[in-house]
């Protein structure tokens, strides 16, 4: 029985590694914007080549992809999320901007709080901020992706 349980645990772990592991290992850079108010915030991430990934340019030449785009249409209650991801990010300086274009008909929500998470190769940084309606803050956060380590090549 204990052998069977061990076996089952190893099978489950193996499946997890097979399915989740490689995906997680590829996720070298993710920038995630989270907020709770029922409005539409937009996330902008500018790569070291100065191309910006955002809702109107959801795929960049450097591999940036807007994975999650929160919208007014069809939004559900609770946490809202926008996420941009590079699987093999270029080293260099990245710039994060946040915009508040649409209140989704909620005239009362003219200033909302958000949380920003930047995860580079497993290391996470977080910060919070406030976005004002029809005002874009192009520089809420800047960070650097280091060149690949020698032992990782």
């Amino acid at each position, binding site marked *: 029985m204990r052998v069977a349980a061990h076996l089952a645990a190893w099978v489950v772990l193996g499946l997890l590694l097979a399915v989740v592991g490689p995906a997680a290992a590829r996720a070298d850079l993710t920038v995630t914007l989270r907020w709770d108010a029922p409005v539409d915030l937009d996330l902008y991430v500018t790569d070291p080549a100065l191309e910006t990934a955002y809702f109107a340019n959801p795929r960049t*030449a450097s591999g940036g992809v807007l994975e999650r785009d929160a*919208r007014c249409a069809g939004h559900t209650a609770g946490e809202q999320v926008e996420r941009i991801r590079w699987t093999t990010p270029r080293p260099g300086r990245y710039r994060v901007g946040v915009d508040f274009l649409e209140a989704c008909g909620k005239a009362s929500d003219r200033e909302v709080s958000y949380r920003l998470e930047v995860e580079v190769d497993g290391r996470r940084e977080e910060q919070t901020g406030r976005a004002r309606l029809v005002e874009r803050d*192009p520089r809420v956060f800047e960070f650097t992706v280091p060149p690949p380590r020698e032992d990782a090549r």
Partner: protein
Amino acid sequence: MKLLGSILLGGLLAVRALAADPGHLVGRVSDAAGDPVVGALVTARHLALARSTTVYADAAGGYTFPPLEPGLYHLRVRRSGFRDRTEAVELAAGATVEEAVGVERETDPRELAWQLPANRWLALAVARLPDDAAREEFRRQCTFCHQQGSWATRVQRDPEEWRKIFALMARMGGVLSTRVRTALPEALNGAYDEASFVPALGERFTPPPPPDATASAAIVTEWEVGDVGSMQHDLAVHPDGHVYSVDTTQDKLYRLDPRTGERRTFDIPRGDSPLGGVFTTQRPIPVNADAYVAPHSLQVARDGTVWITLCLGNKLAHFDPRTEHFDIYPQQEGLYPHTLRLDGRGRVWYTLAVSNQVAMLDPATGERRTYLLPARTWKESLAVRAVPWFLWLGRYVDLDPQRAGDGPELPVPYGIDIAPDGGVWFSQLNAHRIGRLDPESGDIRVIDTPFSAPRRLRFDSRGNLWIPGFSSGVLARFDPRTGEFHTWELPIEPRGSETPYALNVDRRTDTVWICGTESDTLMRFDPATEHFTIYPLPTRVTYTREIDFDAQGAIWTSNSNLPAWQIEGAAPKLIRLELHGAG
């Protein structure tokens, strides 16, 4: 810096090699049957120099490059209706490489449509708008930063995404009326639907005509300057042979030496200007921009110094190439120094686009003047006067620029030029007018144009004023002596699909050169014969805003599509067209 350094070093080495022993690249372009592909654009890109040279295949399909620096080239052959063909060519010093290139016909209608320039796609969208007024507004407001209908903009979006795009563009000044905003999503989605563009552009494929015998003797050289974050707005040729250009989104002045390929970058002082300059609350800048002062237009003075308008910083800059020093002149009255020209006394005249003014600075005396231009209505006048209050108010309350779309439009003084008699002439883009300012009395006379959106205008040597009609797709000549206009439709098909941003007149010949801003072309107009010659440019999404000439008679322009990542190859460029290179 590394890239710039390597270009500089590569340029010097290559020039030394060229001076010693250039290489020669010749060949023929043919199709599968062996027939010549007339008018094919053959482009050799020198990788180390970040510079491309393009010649056109002649009536026999033959092409001949001018002497080229030895090195590794990417050779690309392009002609609408055929698949691009690209090869690597190593050109050794003193060698002659003969490269016969065969190209295959493209048969996929979707791919054929995709090859066509943006103006063809723009025409599909324009045709779906309800009336002429809506079409005019769309062309004027939605094509002044970037091509409309390029690969990056011919995109279907859901209504919410279009709404957000319109809101973003309104921040940049592209403010639409509610009725055009309402009509556009369906028009754009319909035009950019495969069910629409494949039959219209692919199955009934009509390639742009090949260059005629005159045009096919030309050589186009493109130097990559700046980067993906750049907006290479205007350029000016210096009498010493250098070419200066300004980067509106990165606050840079560039200097290219076409003889060596050397590129220098000068940081324009920002002083205490915040990001976005005096418009910091609205921030009418792209998200990847580092625009604090935003250089816009530039001209070389007789003493060899360079004057530059800083539109967001609300200043002028004066650059001395000998000392490499900038002097900055804040604009005390008015907003958005735009296009500038110098008069015969060395005075700097420029439009103030947002505050509906023309201004003058006399470097010799330090005198400065501003002139408020007439508005069409009291509402327009009120809107102009209210702008500074809105800028102030924007610090404290949410101001959505889209709300201005149904109100009176700002007249937007745009192009400016000095007549041979010293009169200062300007256009008011949104008011569809031109005007004359008497520099001595200050008297102002405005004239309605019989076409929409007069943009960057220029005088010829005989005192005729030449004007591009941006949203009307026309070239116009105005004779100030008789007050008569004469207009010509630009020869880009379909008619009316071109949005000429600027023109210039080579006063040595009075030949008029016009930006083919939507069609990746430059156009030459000979006033004596009233004949147009079209020069296809090699890079897709070549958005041009200014033209200048060098001492040898070559024509210069820059590719300033914003954002630059929409440009093929994602590199802004300075472009030279030599008329009789290979022929």
